[in-house]
């Protein structure tokens, strides 16, 4: 028989029920996709602001540095080592950095800040920091001036062309003190950092701290986050046995990682509950569709239709039902996601503050990763396979005479 024809007509026997069931699937998909899209989009952005714009996905440090973060636990810069790591597949480049705390004075105000010495050209390839200069200009390779983050500049009332004084403790107890001309004001997306960051060239910073040729870290800039699990072991192998250690972003940003995992988990629980509700909706419809056609099934089998064939028809009906819901849901959610992907929602009020606390731009970002869609479809499909067991068992075991008598 043309199973398709029979099944298609059968699902339209009760239009309203079919539409209600398909809509429940549709809304589950829309909700599921949108929610996951916002979640994953937010995680991406969190990781992006926290990691790509600052720590990087992998860092090499002196083994002792991570715990105390004192200027005394430095590692020597080594062009050979940097080159070796840069040759690993998927590594874009290796950024030498020297960073520590410093007191900044301007006029009669003083504030704690973090001075980050970078190779401007290399660092910019990862952080795109040059694009974030809002006033003045970016640093040259061995610039003796610095960039001041916008929040800090506002607080201290600093402008391009001003000269500021930095004070700190240098390498092995020397006193660090110097004046820096302000070359530019830079807007750091991470609001926390935007209030404390100073960026200078590496030579000037080394000079300031009295740590010529020394670094706090080498940042391994990788092409994509997904390559991390391939690259990290190779980096670890290279530094094995030395007193350097390779840290991944999840170790350096443990709090962020935990935050993401917890949020992700609660999101999945919510989705789980949603899908349980949808599942029982589908199951209810299938049970009704089967129960009310008992006699008809009996007639078909009496006339010579094999029970497995009848099961197949009911199975196809269920597929149609789900497909309707999934197709509509996919269409609408794809529209929603691509719209908001291109124009993310800016959050205001309390939510914005929460985002800022975690150092993230207050934007509701959507991810349009195809796997988000595929996952939802897969879930619906699996639920369907489970739900369809009921009618299949019913059909395969029904008593012909009882069915005909119904």
């Amino acid at each position, binding site marked *: *028989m043309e199973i398709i024809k*029979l099944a298609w007509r059968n699902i339209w*026997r009760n239009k309203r029920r079919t539409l209600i069931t398909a809509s429940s699937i549709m809304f589950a998909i829309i909700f599921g996709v949108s929610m996951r899209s916002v979640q994953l989009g937010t995680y991406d952005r969190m990781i992006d602001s926290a990691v790509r714009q600052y720590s990087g996905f992998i860092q090499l440090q002196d083994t002792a540095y991570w715990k105390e973060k004192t200027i005394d636990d430095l590692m020597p810069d080594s062009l050979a080592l940097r080159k070796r790591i840069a040759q690993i597949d998927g590594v874009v480049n290796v950024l030498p950095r020297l960073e520590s705390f410093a007191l900044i004075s301007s006029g009669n105000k003083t504030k704690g800040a973090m001075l980050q010495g970078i190779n401007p050209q290399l660092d910019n390839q990862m952080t795109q920091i040059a694009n974030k200069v809002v006033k003045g200009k970016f640093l040259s390779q061995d610039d003796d001036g610095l960039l001041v983050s916008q929040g800090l500049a506002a607080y201290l009332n600093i402008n391009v062309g001003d000269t500021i004084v930095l004070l700190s403790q240098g390498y092995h107890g020397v006193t660090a003190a110097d004046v820096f001309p302000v070359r530019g004001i830079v807007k750091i997306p991470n609001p926390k950092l935007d209030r404390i960051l100073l960026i200078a060239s590496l030579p000037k910073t080394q000079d300031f701290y009295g740590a010529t040729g020394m670094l706090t870290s080498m940042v391994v800039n990788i092409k994509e986050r997904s390559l991390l699990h391939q690259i990290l072991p190779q980096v670890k192998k290279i530094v094995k046995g030395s007193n350097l250690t390779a840290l991944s972003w999840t170790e350096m940003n443990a709090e962020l990682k935990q935050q993401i995992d917890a949020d992700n988990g609660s999101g999945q629980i919510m989705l789980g509950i949603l899908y349980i509700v949808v599942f029982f909706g589908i199951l209810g419809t299938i049970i009704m569709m089967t129960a009310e056609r008992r006699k*008809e099934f009996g*007639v078909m089998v009496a*006339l010579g239709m094999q029970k497995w*064939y009848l099961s197949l028809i009911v199975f196809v009906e269920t597929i149609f039902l789900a497909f309707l819901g999934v197709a509509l849901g996919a269409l609408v959610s794809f529209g929603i996601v691509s719209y908001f992907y291109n124009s993310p929602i800016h959050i205001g009020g309390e939510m914005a503050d929460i985002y800022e606390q975690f150092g993230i731009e207050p934007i509701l970002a959507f991810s349009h990763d195809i796997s988000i869609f595929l996952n939802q479809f897969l879930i619906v499909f699996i639920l369907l396979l489970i739900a369809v067991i009921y009618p299949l068992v019913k059909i395969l075991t029904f008593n*012909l005479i009882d069915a005909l008598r119904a």
Partner: protein
Amino acid sequence: MSIIEIKNLEKIYNENTDIPVHAVNNVNLSFEKGEFAAIVGPSGCGKTTLLNLIGGLDSPTSGMISIDGVDINTLSQSKLTNFRMDNIGFVFQAYNLIPVLTAKENVEFIMHLQGASKKDRDKRAEELLQAVGIDDKANVRPGKLSGGQQQRVAVARALASKPKFILADEPTANLDSKSTETLLSIMERLNKEENITFIFSTHDQRVVNKAHRLIKLEDGKVIGDERVIK
């Protein structure tokens, strides 16, 4: 040779309880090709049960039914289903057409299951609908047909697979007298012109009057079996 041979047939419902029902009690019957036989008797005498057993829809408590030499109770469920498809036509009291299929598609239904080609199906369905006088409603679904029209489609459907015989359990019970007359004359004509074998049960005296053979049942027993010379 008879096409249906029934020996010592028994059907007992609720056998292992205090109130077993002996719905078919030691029935011995045989049917020849081309018969137009009525099974009659009061309500509850076992007509439906007997027809269901002959049609391989139900299984007997004991005894044997052979159709064209095949003991149908030895067949597996799925073989029996195929056997019904190829050998037996069914007409039900409540028509039981498939509601989502048109009249013509209903007639083609079994031919589809048999794997007949589209051309053959088309041709035969058209012929049969014409034979039952319903060809003008070929593309109408059962819901839009009267009871009499539906039952005529059901007869066409029963004939589609070229079965050895047709079983009809009270085919006219839901029909008014005019539709009953139309249906009966169609069945008679098919019997006379195409030598189609009909075995039907009925309460209706007008239907009884048309039968060529009257099998009387009472409490599951055959109490009379007479041939009527027409």
